[in-house]
């Protein structure tokens, strides 16, 4: 089968080398021609990986073959493969050029030793799977702290004791409600299903928050009631979260697949549902601490705010009065500075000036030239006197001048003594006295030599008139 290819190839071997792709094509062709299209191979599953498509190795004591089962084929297999399973696979061999590997592509797969129960299991599980019973999306979350947990099991089962022990250890406060159901044998499944239905209906009334469906290990036949459709349907319908732990860890039942959570053992199921009290107390304590610290922070802030406000308030009030005080003092100083002005220096000046002027006015008022007036008065009189004296003098002169002249022309003279007194008698003169005698044309001055009386007749004549003397 390989020879003809080799016959074709050598002539060109010397000049043009094959590409890798070409070689891969050659290998693939050789494989397709050399191995039948559908072979059945038995072996043990190893290194199983579910990557939508399934990848695993099929091995026996002497060899390992790489296997791929595409999703379309893998979907028909239920339950999924597990390492170590003996399987008989049907398929074809291919060379996977990109990976440089030979792969066995599986069309179908059957488990070695699958009896009627296995087939029934596989068929029901395939049906339920396609009905969506196993989907995670529909599974109910488990309560974090269930008040009561229903335990569906046989009251005499060791599994029940495990659950009770776990509850007592973790949180005694969580109540357990045991629902005694048969866990094996003909007719157990409907009872279990009915119990689940009733629980689902009444759990709220009963205060039950979750349920555990459990039993210990046993034969495939013993566990069979948990693979029946009624139970699966009841679990699927149930409104109460349900944890299933049936048989040993390696056993898988339909009930477990439909349940909201699957656990390996009753103890694990109990642990899964019953919180650890110590942990919860710690959590509660920490919440309490957070609570009080959060509040005391609020109170502290409030206190600080109050203090700050109190401080600001008193400071503000103080500043306000200080400002008022400053303003008052300013005004007070201004008012005080006004003080000299208040007595009005201008008024004082005016008053003093008035006082001086008044004095001066009065002084000049009495400054009358009385002396001048007196002098003028005296002068006026002196003038009047002078005029009069002059007039008297001139009158005298005139009088003297008109002394009786014609008499003198007739030879008489008038003799006057030194005093100017007319000499009439000898007694009027004394010897030695100087006389002045007026004659017609002038005055003769003479000295009295002597005087003697005349005769009686002469004296009589004298009496009759002076001329008689001359």
């Amino acid at each position, binding site marked *: 089968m390989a020879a003809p290819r080799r016959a074709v190839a050598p002539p060109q071997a010397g000049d043009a080398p094959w590409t890798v792709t070409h070689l891969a094509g050659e290998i693939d062709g050789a494989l397709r021609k050399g191995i039948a299209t559908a072979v059945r191979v038995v072996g043990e599953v190893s290194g199983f990986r579910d990557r939508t498509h399934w990848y695993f190795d099929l091995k026996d004591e002497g060899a390992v073959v790489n296997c791929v089962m595409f999703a379309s084929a893998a979907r028909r297999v239920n339950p999924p493969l597990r390492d170590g399973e003996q399987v008989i696979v049907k398929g074809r061999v291919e060379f996977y050029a990109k990976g440089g590997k030979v792969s066995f592509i599986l069309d179908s797969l059957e488990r070695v030793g699958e009896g009627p129960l296995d087939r029934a299991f596989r068929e029901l599980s395939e049906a339920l799977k396609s009905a969506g019973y196993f989907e995670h999306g529909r599974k109910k979350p488990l*309560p*974090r*702290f269930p*008040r*009561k947990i*229903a335990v569906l099991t046989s*009251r005499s089962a060791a599994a029940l004791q495990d659950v*009770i022990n776990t*509850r*007592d250890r973790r*949180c*005694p*406060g969580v*109540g*357990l*409600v*045991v*629902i*005694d*159901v048969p866990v094996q044998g003909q007719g157990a499944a409907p*009872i279990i299903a*009915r*119990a689940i239905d*009733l*629980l689902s209906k*009444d759990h709220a009334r*009963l*205060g039950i*928050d979750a349920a555990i469906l459990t039993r210990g290990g046993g034969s495939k036949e013993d566990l069979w009631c948990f693979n029946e459709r009624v139970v699966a349907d009841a679990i699927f319908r149930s409104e109460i979260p349900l944890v299933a732990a049936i048989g040993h860890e390696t056993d898988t039942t339909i009930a477990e697949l439909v349940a909201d959570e699957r656990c390996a053992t009753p103890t694990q199921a109990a642990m899964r549902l019953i919180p650890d*009290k110590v942990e*919860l*107390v710690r*959590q*509660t304590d920490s*919440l*309490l601490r*957070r*609570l*009080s610290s*959060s*509040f005391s*922070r*609020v*109170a502290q*802030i*409030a206190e600080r705010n109050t203090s700050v406000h109190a401080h600001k308030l008193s400071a503000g009030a103080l500043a306000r009065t200080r400002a008022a005080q400053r303003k008052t003092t300013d005004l007070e100083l201004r008012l005080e500075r006004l003080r000299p002005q208040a007595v009005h220096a201008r008024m004082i000046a005016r008053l003093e000036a008035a006082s001086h002027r008044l004095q001066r006015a009065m002084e000049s008022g009495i400054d009358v030239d009385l002396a001048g007036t007196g002098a003028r008065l005296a002068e006026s009189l002196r003038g009047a006197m002078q005029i009069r004296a002059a007039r008297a003098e001139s009158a005298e002169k005139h009088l003297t001048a008109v002394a009786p002249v014609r008499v003198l022309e007739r030879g008489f003279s008038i003799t006057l003594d030194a005093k100017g007194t007319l000499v009439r008698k000898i007694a009027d003169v004394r010897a030695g006295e100087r006389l002045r005698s007026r004659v017609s044309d002038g005055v003769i001055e003479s000295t009295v030599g002597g005087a003697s009386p005349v005769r009686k007749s002469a004296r009589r004549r004298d009496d009759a008139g002076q001329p008689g003397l001359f």
Partner: protein
Amino acid sequence: MAKRPDHSEKADAELSFEDALAQVESVIESIEAGEIGLEKSLTEYERGVRLIKRCREVLANAEQRIEMLTKDLKPAGRNESE
């Protein structure tokens, strides 16, 4: 404010442990947010304390109750006084 049981107090008493804890958590958050006043914070604090007490009570409940229910779920034990 403190002693008179009000609507929320009653309601709080019926909260599940989980819900109670969640309420405490939200109480803490509302206090920490600082958007409620001091008085309201105090009330909230009080409520938080009450809730925590309730939780503690639940936790402290040491009664290891195990009830039996018959298959048709008629209570078998007369001790389920709930």
